[in-house]
């Protein structure tokens, strides 16, 4: 039975998939790696959302805000101030961390629908600022010619190389997130999710943990933004609208909330799905929608929960 356990180890499955995926569709490799890089970027974002919503129970309908901030800090610092992509990425993460810490306390004092409205409003504010501060951000037309990623002069211009780097970072994010949730901190987060007043009665400082997790997930989102900007080379406000935040929520529920692995599956599924359904041409959106509705109705535990059930049944 040990062999089966090794074969169903999520890390092993993920690493192997990441290694071989670009070669499965060798004919249009550059395009395929591009899609797979987006999968990684959205995986990082969705895992952050899972830490915030699935574990800590704090709703966010504006998770794209810090995705935008990371992308724009990277773009502005590299194109206008000649900073290295690595330095720009780090600056974005630091700025996002400080900003989330500052707004985290007042925003997370809100609950449920009010919190949803506040995060949604924050997303809108970020977009308005990007469009308004035209001199800095290029306004509605965005920023172009963002340099490819590089670490100490070693360029990751080659798609395949960048693909492996981005997924390596994603796996690192998974490891960190799982370390947090599989610990007394994760237990405290679940307690906050369940009953904040009860949690306080056992010495859990809810404000501190909620703010802390908010900072972490927004640093992740900023990281994803930088990785995205340096890959695509051109960013515009449209990439970070509330619609993006909503599709992150769909990825989260699709994959399975509160599981860390669910977001990986959900993000990849939703990013790859259009590449398959585009064969339906005019009916693409319809087929897309039908598949989503089917999954959400018939697989309420998400794709990960369903897969887990199947493997468990096979074992038992």
């Amino acid at each position, binding site marked *: 039975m040990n062999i089966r356990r090794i074969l169903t180890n999520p890390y092993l499955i993920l690493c192997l998939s990441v290694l071989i995926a670009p070669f499965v569709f060798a004919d249009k490799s550059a395009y395929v790696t591009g899609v797979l890089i987006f999968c990684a970027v959205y995986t990082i974002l969705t895992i952050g959302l899972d830490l915030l919503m699935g574990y800590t129970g704090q709703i966010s309908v504006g998770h794209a805000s810090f995705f935008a901030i990371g992308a724009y800090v990277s773009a502005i610092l590299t194109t206008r101030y000649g900073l290295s992509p690595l330095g720009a990425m780090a600056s974005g993460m630091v700025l996002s961390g400080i900003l989330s810490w500052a707004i985290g306390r007042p925003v997370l004092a809100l609950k449920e629908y009010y919190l949803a409205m506040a995060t949604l409003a924050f997303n809108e504010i970020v977009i308005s600022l990007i469009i308004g501060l035209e001199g800095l951000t290029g306004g509605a037309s965005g920023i172009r010619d963002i340099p490819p990623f590089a670490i100490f002069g070693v360029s990751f211009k080659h798609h395949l190389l960048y693909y492996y780097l981005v997924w390596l970072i994603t796996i690192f994010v998974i490891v960190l997130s799982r370390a947090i949730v599989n*610990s007394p*901190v994760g*237990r405290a987060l*679940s307690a906050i999710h*369940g009953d904040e*007043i009860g949690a306080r*009665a056992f010495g859990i*400082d809810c404000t501190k943990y909620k703010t802390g997790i908010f900072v972490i997930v927004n640093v992740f989102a900023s990281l994803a933004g930088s990785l995205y900007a340096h890959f695509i080379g051109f960013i515009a406000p449209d990439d970070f609208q509330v619609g993006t935040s909503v599709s992150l929520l769909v990825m989260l529920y699709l994959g399975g909330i509160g599981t860390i692995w669910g977001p990986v599956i959900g993000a990849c599924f939703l990013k790859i799905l259009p590449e398959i359904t585009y064969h339906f041409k005019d009916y693409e959106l319809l087929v897309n929608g039908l598949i989503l509705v089917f999954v959400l109705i018939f697989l309420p535990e998400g794709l990960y929960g369903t897969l887990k059930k199947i493997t468990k049944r096979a074992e038992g």
Partner: protein
Amino acid sequence: MDGTILKVTGVTKNFKGLRALDGVSFSVRKGMIKGLIGPNGAGKTTLLNIVNGITKPDSGKILFKEKDITGLRADNISRLGIGRTFQIVRLFSAGGLSVIDNVLIGAHSVLNPRILDPIFFRKRLLKKEAEMREKASLLLSFVGLKGMEGRPINSLSFGSQRLVELARALMSDPEIILLDEPASGLNDFEVGHLKEIIISLREKGMTVLIVEHNIKLVMEISHEVVVLNFGKKIAEGTPSDVISDKNVLEAYLGSKEKWMKV
């Protein structure tokens, strides 16, 4: 000091015109079981909520070991050494927490991990966690729930859930434990079991402030009893004094005849 651990002085609390507590004062000595009784709506739970910081009083003071803790936040009060259980069980089921996870939440103030500790100080944290896990297992056997560690919390009977709450409250080695109607919803057998547990706590020198409707239980285990009625203290003393107190008989039990039946 005469060994007073908890001192409540002149606590008053209004809820939109309803006077829930009206100048209530009493004190609890170390190692004592103090019963707090009174009819429904007398303000018993409100008083416990004020002592452990869930509710803030309008006036009055709470002294814990001569330190003024009035108005402190619940998480800070918990860390000072006041444990509690709830009238309506407050167990955590979100995220699929198990029985032992719930007990371990009681050890949070002992572990008190910062959010990045699981990454940067993982070894140290998990070592402390393992010690706490052992302690949690011991406490679960103490309350008679050995072998239930891994069960989902929702799968336990109501009576067992109350015992999980008790084990959880004991995890942080509190100096005083507040029990809010621990016997409500339990059958006679379970009440007997609970009584044994509280008596063994008493023998270990634990200080307990217990709110309870089961008068028989309170009278059997308490050293002293405080009686509240409509937010006012109407009597205080040993169980036998309180039972024969005229105010208590009239205000709390209605008539002597009814009391005789109990």
